[in-house]
């Protein structure tokens, strides 16, 4: 950055520009249209011999002179003053590019002044013809001023070919120049009519008043057609980026656009009413109302026009904070403070990063944002984010929300700015996540008599962690719905998977029996899941409770209890690892054949609050607060134009996937919308760019230091989320690419600023269907399931062909044993290490059956099922190590 920044903490720059510009622009348009009005009325008075009208005209000319030449003239200089103080770089560009355009406009200004002074001071002493000639001179000079200034103002919105050739004429006669000139000319005529009504309505001579007001009302009405047609021409002339910014992207503009659209017919109605013969007081009231409406109308237009060039001050050349496109490329990751000439602080002091953060705010943000002021106040805009959330917002700035410039600077500076916003502007202390404390509960492992027991019962959770959003009064992503699978094996030299004449029951451990007392899922299930009637408390979506009987899946030769409504709370505390006891019983006698225990992991550590704030509902570590849930809807409504918050407040919360199709829930969603995983990962990848597994942990319960740490299986030793799923950018692109190929409109926007990190480019990313195409185990375990070098592995892009190839439903080579039966649940494959709730909480069955933590049958423990040692790998290649 080239220039010092005026510290305008309270008001910010935008307020002053808006204040000076809108008032000046209204008066300056009057100065143009009013000139024509003067000569036309004068001619009318001459032709009709209307002495009263001519006398009135002199008074109006005085009003015109005092308003346009004093206030209009000086406030015009004031705009120059203001922009030079607030954005000297842009001002310098405008001055140097159009210096002779400005100089020509100065000549017109001189002509205007001389003409108006002569017109007014010689009103009674000049020959009428000469006087009218002076009036015409005035109008022509004034209109030429409008013509010249329009070129420069339109240039800021649409610089046209100037961006390539730097040529004066290319910049001046840009895309929006001609429609802008016609549009502004029509506005100028309307405003002239408004002021004519205003002075006319105060005339005591009733006839004169009626004539002036009616004539002026025609001036308000007549240009309407031109204004509307040129307005449409204006919009059509805009390049796509500017048009999209006005009509779709810049959300804050919508109210101004609506005001402009509404005020237009109101002005028309005001003008039409004024044509009628009305009492003086009504005319006065109407004239004031139309003038105020006209002012608001003009102001709305100027706001919308300014918004169209967001985030630029000169579109495509210089951002609103004076960083040019050429500089931006160099500043994306480089230390910004070092390059800013007028930065008082050059480095981030880790002891107090808010000092550098404050300087960054001043340099990069204060041109538009106030601190506690009337326009673009940064305080409420940042109130609903945590420090991490603000950091993410800065990362995403200029991407999916393109009305903001990108943040310039390195990660340290970005975090310093986030710290300043949160700590200094909101008075919040630095954020430190609550430390989780390991527990060492006694793990009740059922006994197993290797010599005499006839059965082995293997049970597992199908996902390794089921997340649920207990935000039900507002919205829901996932209900309490855990799947528990089990296989019963009759031991012997040739073991047999037992599916007949037995029943399998499951029972959750004490403290977890009443999820309906923990979450409000049941109160809102009908609305959230579109059910015909209320769901009985404690009963899950498939009819299962937290204890019950499992159903046989004959095809997979296993028993399953689906959608168990497990909630991760016990005694008011967060506990994501409830244990179920599973028993196999002889159907007829009820005799227990085998018993085991298994973790049914379930988590509400969904990290929305980490960025969106609102806090955690339980123990400051899990669960949705009302505030967080509300904020999510609010931000969705803001960006997607939905009305979800109002619907939820009216008692009609929704399942996110009711709009965004999702294979895991089997929802069809709304045609054309991105599927849910593509939408949510695609959106957030733009805000959590450049990170590793820590990006995953911002939302999922995978933080190694968090209260859940869901990745706890053998892979956690040396791998993290990104080794299988790719980085967040990779992950998102794999989902978005398939949606883009399917013609989903939203994908391209989310992909525009994302680059894959695990592979070279987007071409190499293999698109996939969420949930059905996941990392394939054989992508890394290529030969005989040998452990590959963890330093070189990546399962990204090596997706399963479909649902049947997923680890969680895949079987061994015999087709009878589920992979997870012996290896454990995904994300918790044996040997697992549960950091917080007992190290062996996820290893109960290996410990029960073989006294170690290895997969069932590993390390020569074939005897668990076979009773004898085996010498070949029947289940999968490489199982018997001696074979290799």
């Amino acid at each position, binding site marked *: 950055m080239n*220039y*010092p920044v005026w510290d*305008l903490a309270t008001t910010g720059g935008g307020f002053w520009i808006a204040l000076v510009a809108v008032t000046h622009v209204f008066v300056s348009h009057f100065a143009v249209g009013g000139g024509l009005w003067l000569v036309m009325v004068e001619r009318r008075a001459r032709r009709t011999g209307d002495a009263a009208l001519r006398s009135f005209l002199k008074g109006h000319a005085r009003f015109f002179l005092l308003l346009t030449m004093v206030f209009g003239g000086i*406030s015009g200089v004031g705009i120059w003053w203001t922009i030079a103080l607030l954005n000297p770089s842009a001002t310098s560009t405008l001055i140097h590019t159009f210096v002779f355009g400005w100089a020509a406009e100065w*000549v017109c200004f001189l002509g205007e002044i*001389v003409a108006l*002074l002569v017109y007014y001071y010689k009103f009674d002493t*000049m020959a009428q013809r000469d006087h009218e000639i002076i009036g015409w001179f005035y109008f022509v000079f004034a209109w030429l001023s409008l013509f010249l200034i329009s070129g420069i103002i339109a240039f800021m919105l649409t610089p046209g070919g100037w961006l390539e050739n730097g040529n004066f*004429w290319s910049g001046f006669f840009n895309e929006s120049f001609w429609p802008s000139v016609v549009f502004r000319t029509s506005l100028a005529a309307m405003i002239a009519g408004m002021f004519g009504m205003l002075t006319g309505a105060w005339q005591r001579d009733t006839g004169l008043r009626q004539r002036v007001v009616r004539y002026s009302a025609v001036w308000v009405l007549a240009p309407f057609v031109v204004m509307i047609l040129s307005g449409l021409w204006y919009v059509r002339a805009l390049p796509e980026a500017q048009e999209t910014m006005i009509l779709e992207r810049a959300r804050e503009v919508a109210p101004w656009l609506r005001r402009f659209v509404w005020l237009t017919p109101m002005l028309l109605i005001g003008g039409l009413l004024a044509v009628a013969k009305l009492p003086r007081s009504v005319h006065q009231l109407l004239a004031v109302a139309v003038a105020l409406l006209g002012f608001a109308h003009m102001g709305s237009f100027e706001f919308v026009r300014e918004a169209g060039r967001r985030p630029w001050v000169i579109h495509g050349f210089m951002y609103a904070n004076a960083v040019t496109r050429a500089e931006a490329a160099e500043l994306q990751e480089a230390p910004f403070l070092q390059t800013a000439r007028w930065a008082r602080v050059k480095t981030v002091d880790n002891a107090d990063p808010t000092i550098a953060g404050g300087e960054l705010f001043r340099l990069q943000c204060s041109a538009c944002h106030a601190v506690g002021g009337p326009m673009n106040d940064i305080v409420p805009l940042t109130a609903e984010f945590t420090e991490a959330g603000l950091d993410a917002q800065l990362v995403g700035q200029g991407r999916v929300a393109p009305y903001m410039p990108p943040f310039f600077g390195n990660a340290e500076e970005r975090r310093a700015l986030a710290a300043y916003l949160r700590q200094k502007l909101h008075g919040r202390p630095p954020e430190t996540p609550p430390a989780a404390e390991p527990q060492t509960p006694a793990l009740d492992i059922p006994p197993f008599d290797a010599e005499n027991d006839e059965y082995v019962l293997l049970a597992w959770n199908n996902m390794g962690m089921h997340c649920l959003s207990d935000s039900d009064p507002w919205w829901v992503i996932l209900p309490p719905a855990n799947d528990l699978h089990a296989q019963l094996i009759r031991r012997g030299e040739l073991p047999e998977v037992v599916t007949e004449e037995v029943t399998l029951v499951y029972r959750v451990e004490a403290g977890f029996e009443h999820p309906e007392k923990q979450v409000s899922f049941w109160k809102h299930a009908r609305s959230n899941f579109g059910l015909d009637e209320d769901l009985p408390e404690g009963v899950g979506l498939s009819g299962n409770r937290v204890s019950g009987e499992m159903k046989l899946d004959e095809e997979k030769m296993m028993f399953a209890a689906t959608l168990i409504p497990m909630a991760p709370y016990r005694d008011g505390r967060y506990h994501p690892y409830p244990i179920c006891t599973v028993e196999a019983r002889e159907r007829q006698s009820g005799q227990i054949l085998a018993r085991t225990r298994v973790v049914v992991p379930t988590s509400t550590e969904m990290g929305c609050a980490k960025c969106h704030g609102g806090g955690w509902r339980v123990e400051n570590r899990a669960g949705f607060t009302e505030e967080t849930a509300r904020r999510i809807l609010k931000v969705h409504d803001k960006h997607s134009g939905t009305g979800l918050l109002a619907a939820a407040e009216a008692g009609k919360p929704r399942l996110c996937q009711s709009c965004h199709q999702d294979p895991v829930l089997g929802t069809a969603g709304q045609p054309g919308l991105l599927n849910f995983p593509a939408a949510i990962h695609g959106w957030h990848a733009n805000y959590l760019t450049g990170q590793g597994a820590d990006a995953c942990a911002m939302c999922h319960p995978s933080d190694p230091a968090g209260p859940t740490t869901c990745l706890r299986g053998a892979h956690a030793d040396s791998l993290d989320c990104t080794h299988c799923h790719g980085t967040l950018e990779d992950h998102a692109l794999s989902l978005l690419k398939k949606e883009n190929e399917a013609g989903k409109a939203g994908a391209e926007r989310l992909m525009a600023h994302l680059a894959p990190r695990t592979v070279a480019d987007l071409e190499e990313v293999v698109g996939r269907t969420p949930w059905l195409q996941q990392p394939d185990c054989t992508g890394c375990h290529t030969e005989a399931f040998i452990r590959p070098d963890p330093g070189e592995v990546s399962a990204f892009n090596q997706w399963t062909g479909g649902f049947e190839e997923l680890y969680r439903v895949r079987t061994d080579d015999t087709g009878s044993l589920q992979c997870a039966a012996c290896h454990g649940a995904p994300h918790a494959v044996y040997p697992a290490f549960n950091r917080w709730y007992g190290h062996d909480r996820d290893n109960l069955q290996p410990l029960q059956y073989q006294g170690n933590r290895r997969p069932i049958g590993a390390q020569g423990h074939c005897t668990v099922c076979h009773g004898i040692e085996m010498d070949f790998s029947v289940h999968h290649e490489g199982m018997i190590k001696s074979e290799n």
Partner: protein
Amino acid sequence: MPPNLIPRPDVLQVGWGWFQVLLTVTFTAHILLMNAMFGGAVVTLLGAARPGTGGESVARDMAGRVPTLVALAVNAGVAPLLFLQVLYGHLFYTSSILMARWWLAIIPVLIVGYYAAYGVYYRYETPLRPLWSLLAVGLLLYVSFMFANNNTLALRPERWIAGFENPSGAWLNLGEPTLWPRWLHMMVGAVAVGGLFAALVQDTRARRGIEGAAAARDWALRFFTHGSLIQMAAGLWWLMALREDVMRRFMGGSPLASALLVAGIATGVWAVVHAFQKKVRSAALWLVVTVTIMAVMREIVRIGYLDGVFHPETLTVVPQVSPLILFLAVFAVGIGCVVYMLKLAFRAAKEG
């Protein structure tokens, strides 16, 4: 001074000499009109307080002229400010930002001052006239003081470091040794020139034989004669207050600068001599010559202060001549139109 505080300037479309000439010429026009405006306002204030004298006659006349002079002075000020920004914008914007609060306040102050000038005119016969008059003079003084601050600050990048520490825009260049003599020189000069302008008007009336006009002229002319003598002392103070290397340019160091100083003093004295002899038109003519010389000297001072820091000849030129031709054509047509309009106006005056 941290050299990296000086912003990078932008490129020019034609050689810097074009802009330097345009800047100097238009500034001369502006300063003459500004002097007539401010001096006129002071003469109005003081003259109106002397009922029954030539002063009152001058005040009545000038009260109607000052608002027009404000309009013309502001307009004539736009052009040099534009050309100043082309050559020295990177320095001028910076100094403006350092005193941003004071600088931006010029706009509302000038609007109120301008309306106050109309207040004097339209409310001349009311008891509020002195208040309007004082308000106009006071506010215009504020504007002039801020211009003196900014123009001196833009020449002293080494002083910017103070503003660097205080970005609230509340800073003024009060420690600058040339500030006070420069402002005093300008303002006393303005009062003198305002007196001469009023005298010129009265002289024209006197030539038409209007009663009391000669006395009014003589009353107004004293502002020029006496004011010029004080102003010369202020000019000497300013000269002495200049940074030594710059001052030495006018003391023989630079033949051109020294010659201009001598010529400026000579023509100024000559103008005063004519004024003492009641040769108002000659005095006015020599005054224009003096002010033109002083405007050139002012540019020499600017370039001298910036020696080693910046010179506009170092600016990059990416030639584009057609916009200059556009301006010259518009200027020629515009001036032609103005002349025609004034012709129509004066024809009306004669007829009226």
